[in-house]
Structure formats: structure tokens, C-alpha cells
């Protein structure tokens, strides 16, 4: 059974890297379209948001479907969100702002949509740093869980950032906003109505190697 769980993790790990690989491949071939830097910024930004939403979808999915074994994938998905957001920022900093710290910082301060995006990225740094088993143990499960609720704020910041930068067509940012509201609303609802009964899964479903990971986190 545990080899199956590992296989699923491999599946998640590999698929998360596919967009990055294709983006890099297209960049090498010069096939990012007419405005390649902006295309790369937008692609990585969208991917960061997608992975944030996927990360936040794990817990409801695990609870509703009883897939306790799936929980460890949340970490991988969250790290991908951070990875894409970091790449997003680094492309902006290096290729759009041409490594000018002053222009990057002044833009981040002057443009509310960039300030909000930066908040989202900054909040994800401590989450990525504390994503190892060692850090979970050192922090203790409940403190770790509280800290990692910052994911909610990062995701809200990401959606706000997106909403604030579009010119007229709000459909995509609103779609993300709705998804996020559902995912966070579910958490608010279950928190208010008491913990959902844990599905009595067979023992084999409990992931072996990630025992310290708090799989009940909201």
C-alpha cells in the first residue's frame, strides 16, 4: 500500500514540474510569443495561484473523500506554489526590472497590485522554510498549523493582486476568487460546526513516512 502512496506522490511531483519544464523549453526555443518576458511573468504568476488553490483543496478533499493518505501531497503542492511565485518575482526582477533593486522596490511600493503580490510572496517564505519534517517537529504541530494558516492570506493576496492588475476582463480573477471563497468557506463552516468526524479509514491508509505531518490541519 505505501508504495502506492509513494507512487501518487511521484505523480504529483512530476506533474507539478511539467509547466516549468515546458515554459523553460519554450523559452529556450524562443517560442514565448511576441512579448516573452511578460508571458513568462504571467505564466508563473498564474501557476503560483493555481498551486495555492490546489494546496488549499487538499484538506477538504481528504476530509470529504476520506483520503487521508493524500495529505502529504499538500506539502509538495505548497512548495510548488512557492517555487512558481518565486520564479514569477525573479523573472520580474531580473528581466523586467533588469536587476535594478531601486526600480523593483519603488515599483513594489508605488503600485498597490505589486505591493499586495509582494505581501503574498513574503508570507510564503516562512511557510516554505518550515515545510520540512524537522521544522514541523521543532515547532510542534499546533504552532506549525497556526503558522501555516498564513497560506490563506497568501492566497487571498494572490487573488487580490490578480484582480487589481487586469484592465477590464475580471472573469479569471473572479473564478479564482470564487474557488478560494469555497475552500476557505468550507474551513470556516467546519470550524464553526465542530470538527467533521474522521472517516475510519483502514490502518494502511495512514502515510508511514510523513507521520509528523499534521494531517488534520485546516
Amino acid at each position, binding site marked *: 500500500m505505501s508504495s502506492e502512496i509513494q507512487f501518487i506522490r511521484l505523480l504529483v511531483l512530476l506533474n507539478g514540474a511539467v*509547466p516549468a519544464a515546458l515554459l523553460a523549453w*519554450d523559452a529556450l526555443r524562443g517560442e514565448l*510569443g511576441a*512579448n516573452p518576458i*511578460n508571458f513568462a511573468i504571467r505564466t508563473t504568476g498564474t501557476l503560483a495561484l493555481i498551486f495555492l488553490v490546489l494546496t488549499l483543496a487538499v484538506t477538504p478533499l481528504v476530509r470529504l473523500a476520506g483520503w487521508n493518505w493524500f495529505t502529504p501531497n499538500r506539502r509538495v503542492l505548497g512548495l510548488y506554489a512557492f517555487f512558481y511565485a518565486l520564479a514569477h518575482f525573479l523573472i520580474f526582477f531580473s*528581466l523586467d526590472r533588469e536587476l535594478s533593486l531601486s526600480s523593483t522596490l519603488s515599483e513594489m511600493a508605488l503600485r498597490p497590485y505589486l505591493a499586495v503580490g509582494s505581501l503574498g510572496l513574503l508570507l510564503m517564505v516562512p511557510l516554505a522554510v518550515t515545510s520540512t519534517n524537522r521544522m514541523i517537529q521543532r515547532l510542534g504541530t499546533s504552532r506549525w498549523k497556526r503558522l501555516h494558516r498564513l497560506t490563506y492570506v497568501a492566497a487571498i493576496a494572490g487573488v487580490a493582486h490578480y484582480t*487589481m492588475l487586469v*484592465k*477590464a476582463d475580471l*472573469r479569471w480573477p473572479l473564478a479564482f476568487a470564487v474557488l478560494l471563497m469555497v475552500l476557505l468557506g468550507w474551513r470556516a463552516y467546519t470550524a464553526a460546526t465542530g470538527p467533521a468526524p474522521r472517516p475510519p479509514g483502514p490502518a494502511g491508509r495512514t502515510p508511514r513516512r510523513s507521520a509528523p505531518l499534521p494531517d488534520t490541519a485546516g
Partner: protein
Amino acid sequence: MSRSPKIPSGEITPEGDYFDRRRFLRGGLLAGSVLTTGTAYRLLNSPGGEEIETAPLRDLVSSTGETAAGPQPSLTTTEPAANGGAGSATGGTEPLPGTPIASQPPPIQPVVEPAPVDPPPTPPAAVTTTPPEVPANDPFETPTESPAPDAAVASAPAEPEADRAGFSTEEKQTPFRNIANYNNFYEFTTSKERVAAAARRFQPRPWSVQVDGLVQQPREFDLEEILRLAPPEERIYRMRCVEGWSMVIPWAGFSLSRLLKQVEPLGKARYVAFQTLHDPQRMPGQKVPVLEWPYVEGLRLDEALHPLTLLASGLYGKELPNSCGAPLRLVVPWKYGFKGIKSIVRITLTENQPPTSWNVAAPYEYGFYANVNPEVDHPRWSQATEQRLGEFGRRKTVLFNGYADQVAHLYAGMDLRRWF
């Protein structure tokens, strides 16, 4: 792979085979999922790159006023795009492989001398003597007016030499492929890279343009009638989008003033309103209310009559691709790109300032004038710099997009921050 499906596998499969099969299955699952993810990425995140072919224009006059009788400097300066793909690497004379090229000898028109018609002793009166916001009562008393305004035969460029400043630039031209695959044309889709694909089946003919309002001779023009007013003339303009990117585009067309002359504007007319085709069946983006449809734009009459203001019917020596506003669009090179309304079906002269789509959608972000100005930021982003497509790094944006010598007098005394 090796077992008959009739035998219950769990009972008799030897362990080795069992794991082999499982590994095989997993390999398939991995490959399948990666393929699915990759396909989804490709479908949802296309960088564009449609191959687009349009008919070559006849009688093209080069930006120096000569017909395209041979390879033109302006059409050969394009180097392989730094970021371009195969299609753009062939340079300006042949934007797409296998496409008829514009620089071939024109079939009909002999060389037209660039000799100015009616050389003006003074600069156009309408623009110099006009207070910034009140165009002259009769702007048609300009030296550019020809004695036979309705000459149906193609003639030499009407603009005297003095007015032709800014008609061309030596700057490196954006490859055709990129111009035709990166468009803000919400009538088709709000995704710039997808407009070309969404507009592929659009039929720009037959087409007619209603020209009316405060004019002596309101009438509906057939497209061909308009195109016959003057030979298409190449104009190499910078194009600066309000979003912070720019291109250099070899348009083809003639000054809008030539069309306006035909209808004889009345003295009361002070503005010109433009309207894009409204037909959600042909322009599916109009089924979505991201903007108020139809798209409308407007210019002050003196802006509309400025020789730089172009009624464009082509680019790179060929007819306009659908994605660029076929069959007829406006180009106002010193203003942000959204002023260049596409697929025009109506032009109306008015006394009052007409509504303009982006101004209606977000009045604090997009003004009526929308002159390119690095000093006046968009409320949400900077306008100080721009990404010139094909270049690495951003360049400084220039007031009036570099056409200040030609147009700054139109705004003398105006607070450009207020009238953004």
C-alpha cells in the same frame, strides 16, 4: 503483456511478472498524467503564433513617397526577431514563408513622384491658429486640400513635404508574425495571444463605412470606394500600448483627412467619433460584456485632420490581418494604442466630445486624449518605460511617443495631466 486475461491474476501470477506489470502500469500512468498536464498547459497557455496570410496591396507607395518598385529600405531593415520563431526570421520583405511579398513590382501603378501637391507657403492654418480645445471653424482651409477632392484615381501623396515628418522611422520593425499575434482586440478575445486564432474566420468583406454627422455630404462608402481615394502609402510608426509595451509597425494607408474631405465637414463640427462593427456572431468577444459594445473612439477634429492620423488598410505591404482590425482601422501614433479603433463601420462628425470606450469603462484610468506621456502614470502602473517587443530590457517612453515636433502644438497651453 504476458498473461492471458482469463486467468485471475492475483492467484497465479508469479511475483516477478506481477511487479513487472505493475511497473508497466505505473509507467503508463505517469506518462499519461504528464501528457495530460502538458496538453492542458499548452491549451490554456498558448503564446500565439498563427500563420497569417493576407493579400498583397496594390500600388503601395513607400514611406518616402515612391511606389514600391523594388526592394524598399523600409521593408528590408527588419532583422530576424531576437525572440521570434521561424516565421519571423525571414525578415521584413517576406514576413511569412511562401507569402506573396509586398516589394514585388506593383502590377499596375507606375512610379509616382513624391512631388508635393500645392506646396504650402505656411504650415496648415487649422492647427497653428487654433486654440487647443476649439478647432478652427473651417479646418479644411488647409493647403493640403486638392482642387479635385473626389479624384477616384490614385494620386501622389497629398501631404506636402513639410507635413510628412514622422511618416517613417529607421527603428527596427517588429516582425509581422508578432504584430499579427499580439493584439488587444476584445471583440474577439481579451487574450492578446489568442486574438489571431479567434479572428481567423472573420470575413472583412463586403464592408462599408457610414460617414455622417455634421457634414455636407453624409454617405455610406463601400470599402473599395474608400481604398480608391488614394494609393496605400507606407507609414512606419511607433505604436505604444497603454499596457507598457510597444512595436514599430509599417502600416499602409492614407491620412484620414482624405476621407473626411470627401464628406465636407460643416463649420460646427469639432470632433470625430468612430465606431467598430457590432456583430456578436462575427465578433464573438462581443457576447461578453467586458466593455460596452460597440467599441467607440473619438478625436478632436484637428487631431483627426493631422497628417499623421492614418486610416490604415494594411501592414507590411499586405492587407490588414483580421487580428489587426481588418479591413480598415485608425492609427494615431502619438496616442496610446487603444485610440486606434479597429474594423471601423462608422465615422460621425460631432459638435460635442463623443464617448470613448475605455474612458466609459474606467474614466479615471483612460482619458479622452490618451496622449503617450511618460510623466502621467496610469493609476495602477507606470508609463515611464515600455517594453519594445523584440528588445531585451525596457526603454524610456517619450512624450507624444516621439512625435512631439509634429503634434505638441495641438495641445499648447493644455494641462496634460488634467487632459490625460
